[in-house]
């Protein structure tokens, strides 16, 4: 072990090596930043620019109209009703999904050997595209040939049968039911992970202290899931505010706008009414609403950063 070294003594000193090291972060980040700039940041800014135009998207007849579109949006009851529907979707998503998901998580937690296979089967809806589910449930809800009404008939509840998607009173609810059906297993798995992280020694200690299983669940395991709840609520609300696919496929926002969401309203303005300017205003307005609600929500759940 004398002077045979892997590197020459003089080589590699300073210069080249260090400057490459300095440039490295830029090189590693360049592809991501480039793509995000082109396909996320630029469109975002561009959407706000388009929102100041009156333009059908085809010719060069785009006209700058300043804040006219925004004034229109502020008083556009259709937009605010759509936003309200988004909020309904968010609220009902949370209220319906969370309790059922917790119950199912507890059920699977106690199901022993069967829990694995049940979990796998429960999870199936999450693999489906919204278009597939939308089409499937459109027929499921069909007033004449749909299995839901047939099922109600069969169990003697025929009087409850409805034109689920064709009735302004039921359309939104019918879609919300499908959303919940699809996503409950997602939150169930989330809660299962939360329950699994509950330290076994604590429930053993509690049992020695004479606590019943029910007490352990209500007083210890449920509070332990607090962080998971926060994550679940944030995910579910943000998802609901951006929702599009299933509504578009199942009802197109109808009937009579009763199931319209911000995203479907935007889509209709742009691609059906060819109002690119106003459609962009709706999109930008939607962006503002989502960011506002999301940032309020994040403030109330600081754990988002670490858990999501």
């Amino acid at each position, binding site marked *: *072990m004398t002077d*045979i*070294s892997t*590197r020459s*003594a003089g080589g590699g000193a*300073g210069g080249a*090596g260090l400057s490459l090291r300095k440039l490295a972060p830029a090189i590693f980040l360049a592809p991501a930043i480039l793509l995000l700039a082109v396909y996320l940041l630029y469109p975002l800014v561009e959407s706000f620019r388009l929102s100041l135009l009156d333009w059908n998207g085809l010719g060069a007849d785009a006209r700058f109209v300043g804040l006219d579109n925004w004034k229109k949006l502020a008083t556009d009851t259709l937009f605010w009703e759509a936003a309200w529907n988004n909020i309904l979707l968010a609220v009902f998503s949370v209220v319906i999904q969370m309790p059922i998901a917790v119950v199912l998580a507890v059920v699977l937690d106690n199901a022993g050997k069967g829990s694995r296979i049940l979990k796998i089967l429960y999870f199936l809806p999450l693999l489906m595209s919204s278009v597939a589910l939308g089409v499937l449930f459109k027929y499921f809800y069909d007033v004449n040939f749909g299995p839901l009404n047939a099922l109600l008939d069969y169990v003697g509840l025929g009087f409850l049968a409805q034109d689920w998607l064709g009735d302004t009173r039921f359309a939104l609810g019918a879609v919300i039911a499908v959303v919940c059906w699809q996503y409950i297993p997602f939150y169930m798995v989330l809660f299962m992970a939360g329950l699994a992280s509950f330290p076994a020694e604590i429930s053993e200690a509690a049992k020695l202290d004479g606590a019943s299983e029910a007490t352990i669940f209500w007083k210890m395991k449920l509070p332990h899931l607090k962080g998971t709840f926060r994550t679940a609520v944030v995910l579910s609300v943000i998802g609901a505010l951006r929702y599009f696919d299933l509504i578009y496929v199942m009802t197109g926002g109808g009937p009579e706008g009763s199931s319209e969401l911000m995203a479907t309203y935007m889509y209709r303005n742009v691609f059906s009414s060819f109002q690119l300017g106003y459609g962009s205003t709706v999109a930008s307005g939607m962006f503002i609403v989502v960011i506002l609600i999301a940032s309020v929500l994040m403030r109330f759940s600081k754990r988002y950063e670490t858990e999501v």
Partner: protein
Amino acid sequence: MTSITLSGVNKSFGANFPVIRGVDLQIEDGEFCVFLGPSGCGKSTLLRMVAGLEMGYTGEIRIGDRVVDKVEPADRQVAMVFQNYALYPHMSVYDNMAFGLRQAKTAKAEIERRVQDAARILQIEPLLDRMPKALSGGQRQRVAIGRAIVRQPKVFLFDEPLSNLDAALRVHMRSEIATLHRNFPAASMIYVTHDQTEAMALADKIVLLHAGKDMLKHGSIAQVGKPLDLYHRPRNLFVAGFLGSPTMNFLPGTFIAQEAAGARVALKGGEELVVPVNGGALAPGGAVTLGVRPEHLAPVAAPAAQTLTRPVTAVEHFGEYSFVYLDSGTPTPMIAKVAGDGGVKAGDTASFAAPIECCHLFDGDGIALNHLTSL
């Protein structure tokens, strides 16, 4: 020429959080140097600065004749063994050892030869095809050492390499590292540890580092020297207290006068002792600290000159020897390490001789006073 020289080295984390202050240090060709100190003293940081992993310091580091402050780690001709081994989990033992050589475009046959040689030295030949996951802690540490050996570095750097091993294995690997040093006499080694036994057992030279306030006040280096120099001639209270187990007894007292045999000191308990140091600079009545190691206190039948007599508060028996805890009048008990069962029990009052040549004296600032005779 693989001496390592650190001149005027300082480092801070952030703007005003110094970790290394004023380090001037020379590590000789082929020397086994141990950086020793409590946690937070910057010993690992100092090592990593030599490795080139820690930049942004002031001062100068040379390896051999070359200033390496701007040299990439791989070009410094150093190899490092990490505390947690840092083996590449996705590579076999062979590939782990060969990786650096492949990066350096070494010829295949040469790689094969070096890896096989290292494996033979470390007795890990049967493990070459295994993945790190499948190895025990001791085996992993060997592979980590093997990875260092194959590079034939001029300097070996060890960062607390034995800390993750259990006690028995640690003693065994310690002797293997000593053997390694004998097998590669030309390479210098720097070894970081917080364990004074490791340092005493391995080092040609110990660099004991200050932490916290001491570092700010006196600079990072507390004392540099051969292990026994630090043991017998600690430069200050920190060094005296850091080396030795149980630690040196410190007894507060006052300086009376300088005599031919040394400084005469009065202790709180009333005894007067002579310590063979030059107390000429001390003012009579000035506060001093007497230091005497537990293993140097010898039981005597009755109080006499140069003895300490105290009530026994507890005795711990270890068979071969015992620790006798004595009420020193301060919150920290005085400890005597005596042969066999010590012949005393709690509640007794016992006397111990403090041989003059084994006594140390520290001034009011904690600095050791110079001995009148050299060792």
